[in-house]
């Protein structure tokens, strides 16, 4: 008799589990589980080294730029658009920051932000006003801006003023700044209409328009804001590196995209976008990358495992039901 009861409970538990997976509730915590799993794995594989406080700090140090710059891309991807120009953009903004830092610190920060905004608004113009898919626009911009960066750094890297690195390059400064950016964005994303607006555009541009969302304006502002955020990330980058070379920010766009997707961000944006995608994604990406180095793997093996883990995570996280047409 108890058997049947047990069987029944087991059945109902299973049914509930299936339901939870279906309703996507479980799926939204999967990335977090994945992160925990990865951390646990590397903590063991590196003999606890990964989770030593000092090492945690060291690993965090290398995530600041990625964390901040991801905020902008996160907004863009929430709307279902893409941005491949981030890497070049951060390179250019960083040049501006470095050059202006010779004059004054506030000017440097503002200059970097302004530079990002200019690039962002060019993206917005072609994407929103000229109706060219964001993929094409931002790939063209990636080329174009990378060319400018290379041109400006042909003879020497753009050097930042000494105080950037000497005074500001400390965990005590950068960590709070990064957390402040994330918290500020979290507050704006959650407690103002911004979050709902972004998701609405991602979930359906036409319907969003009829619910009072000005799609064109939102997109334009988001691209510009993403540029501004990237400009600010460029400031952090300048602090960490002190100068920019022609490769400054190379591949950042791909890293951001991989990280956000690892964090569970649906690439088509929309309702299932979560703020946690940024933090979980970037941290997972970095722990995976750094963890494999710490295990002493060769480049080729490290890369191979990264690829496999990435694909497995993707296969598990991605929400296939709500998209009819997968591009």
């Amino acid at each position, binding site marked *: 008799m108890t058997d049947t009861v047990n069987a029944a409970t087991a059945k109902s538990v299973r049914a509930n589990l299936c339901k939870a997976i279906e309703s996507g509730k479980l799926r939204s915590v999967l990335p977090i589980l994945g992160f925990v799993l990865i951390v646990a794995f590397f903590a063991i594989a590196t003999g606890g080294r990964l989770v030593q406080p000092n090492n945690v700090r060291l690993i965090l140090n290398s995530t600041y730029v990625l964390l901040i710059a991801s905020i902008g891309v996160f907004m863009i991807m929430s709307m279902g658009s893409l941005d491949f120009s981030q890497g070049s953009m951060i390179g250019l903004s960083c040049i501006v920051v470095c050059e202006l830092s010779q004059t004054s610190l506030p000017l440097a920060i503002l200059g970097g932000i302004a530079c990002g905004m200019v690039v962002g608004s060019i993206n917005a113009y072609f994407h929103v006003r000229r109706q*060219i898919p964001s993929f094409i626009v931002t790939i063209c911009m990636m080329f174009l801006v990378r060319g400018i960066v290379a041109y400006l750094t042909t003879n020497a890297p753009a050097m930042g003023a000494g105080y950037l690195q000497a005074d500001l390059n400390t965990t005590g400064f950068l960590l709070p700044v990064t957390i402040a950016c994330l918290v500020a964005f979290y507050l704006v994303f959650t407690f103002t209409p911004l979050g709902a607006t972004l998701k609405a555009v991602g979930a359906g541009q036409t319907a969003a328009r009829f619910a009072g969302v000005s799609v064109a304006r939102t997109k334009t502002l988001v691209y510009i804001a993403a540029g501004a955020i990237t400009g600010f990330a460029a400031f952090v980058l300048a602090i960490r590196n002190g100068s920019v070379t022609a490769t400054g920010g190379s591949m950042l766009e791909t890293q951001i995209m991989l990280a956000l997707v690892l964090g569970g961000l649906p690439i088509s944006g929309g309702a299932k976008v979560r703020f946690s995608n940024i933090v979980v994604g970037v941290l997972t990406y970095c722990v995976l990358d750094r963890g494999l180095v710490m295990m002493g793997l060769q480049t080729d093996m490290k890369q191979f495992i990264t690829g496999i883990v990435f694909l497995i995570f993707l296969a598990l996280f991605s929400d296939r039901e709500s998209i009819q047409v997968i591009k």
Partner: protein
Amino acid sequence: MRAALKKLRQSRYYGVGLLLLIAIAIWAVFKLLTPSNFGDPEKLVSYLQTALIYAVGGCGLYFICVMGLFDFSIGAMMILAELAAIAFIPWLGYVSVVVVPVLVGLLLGIFNGVAYIKMRIPSIIVTTGLSLLYEAASVWMANVNGTRLPASHNAFGSYPWNLVVALAAFCLCGFLLKYTKVGTYTNAIGANELVAKNMGVDVDRYKAIAFALCGLFVGIMSILYLGYGTAQTPQTGMLSQSLNFKPLMGTFFGLAFRKYGHPVVSIVIGEYIVSMIFAGFVAMGVPTTINNIVTGVTLLAIVTLTTKRFNGAVVK
């Protein structure tokens, strides 16, 4: 007058004509700026050499880009295909240079296609993930027989053999687009996947076929690329992605002029324009870093001019 213009616009050769005009205009600008260093007939032929290589890749990408998909792994595929060709030379000789890259390309293309279909994840993401694996594999492949193509095996790097291979690839692409179902179906899926499905098009199958074809053309491109450069170092850390963009430029041209028909010709002329701009900057002796800027601007301008805007369009 207006009617004549409209008629002209509807003509089948309008797109190609327009592209040729753009090409001639760019030629004229450089010719004026640097009359002695640029644009003589034999130089024009030499610009074609690199254009041919990337145009072949552009043809491959066209099959998937036309469906709104993308393949971020072609750079890694190309490197792996080239290194595989080098690896098998001791056993297969010239056969290895021709057959192995094509096979590797095709195989990886099929792999991409199957992964995309089975995993049901956006193509950009899935191919980025796979490119990590291909890059790793290229490191292993490089250990077999090094990274250099023996000079005795580089016939496909120069005229006439490069032209033969490229023309064969262009004809194949044109043929596939016009004389098989693949062309029609990829276009149909690109226009409206759901309608196409209703018409009995096996969407998944043709998407996979398109990925396979993309791989095939990337394989052919590898023959030319390897012959031309005669060496290929494996790359890691997603650096191979930088190789994606040159072929993609041509594809953008092909897509932008798609509505006028003749995508292959558009891709070739487009790549030629890109190649000519680079040569022009070298000829002028100005820093070639500007070249990227000009290429970016040209491409944006052309895409902008050929994009028809309409109210309420959903553009992502």
